[in-house]
């Protein structure tokens, strides 16, 4: 349930950026190898957002596929799990994507 702490982090960043204005939409990025379960964040969000600028906001979660570049053969490849290795057999690679945990943007409520 570290997702509760992650969700608190999202709402805190949103509230800071909103500066008292109502937020209609919050867009976050969660990498598939970030160790955070999007469903649990979505579950926590309405409760955490209650009483804040994001109370009525709509949480959009963009899940980012994970990929890496092999240090030996240079190939870029998808890494659906933490245990994926390069097809050339190398265990040496740099993660290119999939560990994101970001708040991308907020959309303010036009009525405000």
């Amino acid at each position, binding site marked *: *349930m*570290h997702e*509760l*702490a*992650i969700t608190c*982090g*999202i709402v*805190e*960043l*949103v509230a800071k*950026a*909103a500066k008292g204005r109502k937020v*209609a*939409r919050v867009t*976050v990025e969660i990498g598939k190898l*970030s*160790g*955070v*379960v*999007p*469903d*649990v964040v*979505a*579950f926590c*969000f*309405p*409760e955490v*957002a*209650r009483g804040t600028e*994001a*109370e*009525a*906001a*709509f*949480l*959009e*979660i*963009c*899940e*980012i*596929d994970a990929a890496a570049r092999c240090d030996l053969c240079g190939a870029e490849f998808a890494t659906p799990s*933490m*245990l994926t290795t390069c097809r050339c057999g190398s*265990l*040496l690679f740099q993660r290119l994507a999939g560990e994101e*945990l*970001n*708040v*991308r*943007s*907020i*959309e*303010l*409520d*036009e*009525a*405000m």
Partner: protein
Amino acid sequence: MCGTCGCAGDAKATLLNLQTGTATEIAGVHNPHEHVHADGTRHSHARDEPHSHAHDDNHHRDHDHDHAHDDGHQHQRHAHAPGSVHGDPHEPAGDVVLIESRILAKNDALASKNRAWLAGREIFAVNLVSSPGSGKTTLLERTIPSLAGEMPLFVIEGDQASDYDGERIRKAGAPVVQINTGAGCHLDAEMVARGLSELKPSARSIVFIENVGNLVCPALFDLGERAKVVIFSVTEGEDKPLKYPHMFRAASLIVINKIDLVPHLDFSLQQTIDNVRLVNRDAAVLEVSARTGEGLEAWRDWLCAEAAAAREFVPL
């Protein structure tokens, strides 16, 4: 997840048939997605069907939707609080404010402050993580008397509840603060900052941070430590590095504890180490028994070497 009916929506669970080797994604138990509301009304929509609806009835607290997965690299889902109305595809109606910030930015900033504070005092801080019952506290009880003559030792104890472990550490002879996380499943940088402020560790000491027993959550939260150590006991089984790869990957050292029990178990040390290597090529691995003392000399040497490195560290 739907707060009303608890359904998983677009769950990422997969089902593996061990007999056939086939894996299937369990794409939500409700597909098409269907809810029964508190007042008995029911609605449903298909997975790939864009839709819009108003929630002004205040009986449905939160809500997930599935979207068509034709965008290649990103899969979107969303939840919203009661009272909001929306349609899809989305056209921004109000001003968009780019934030582009890491969710963990606040914790990481506090962790950096802790790290600088510790480095300035030439303190070696080590974050001990494990599942509950792997022997973290017992290992510390053995370590404290054996290192007490070498350098000052301090302990920050993290547990969901009770000061039971803190009391054990105190009896072993080290100053200790106990952090109870309540509902929390991990220590964070702010808790450790408060712990350090209360503990006031002396310069050139070792600060052991015993995290909440949990192989999942503590992996994500930087505390400002110089090294993470996973304590792993042989009774947990060889597969744990593969099942909890985030934690094993983040560690500088894996301590395999309770090796005195190996003769009584179907447990392969070599298989465990092979599994560790699949997720972490670089971590040192030590085999110890905190109960019998076997292997503790190497653990002690590792701590002394790291503490010496912390004293030599020059922040650039």
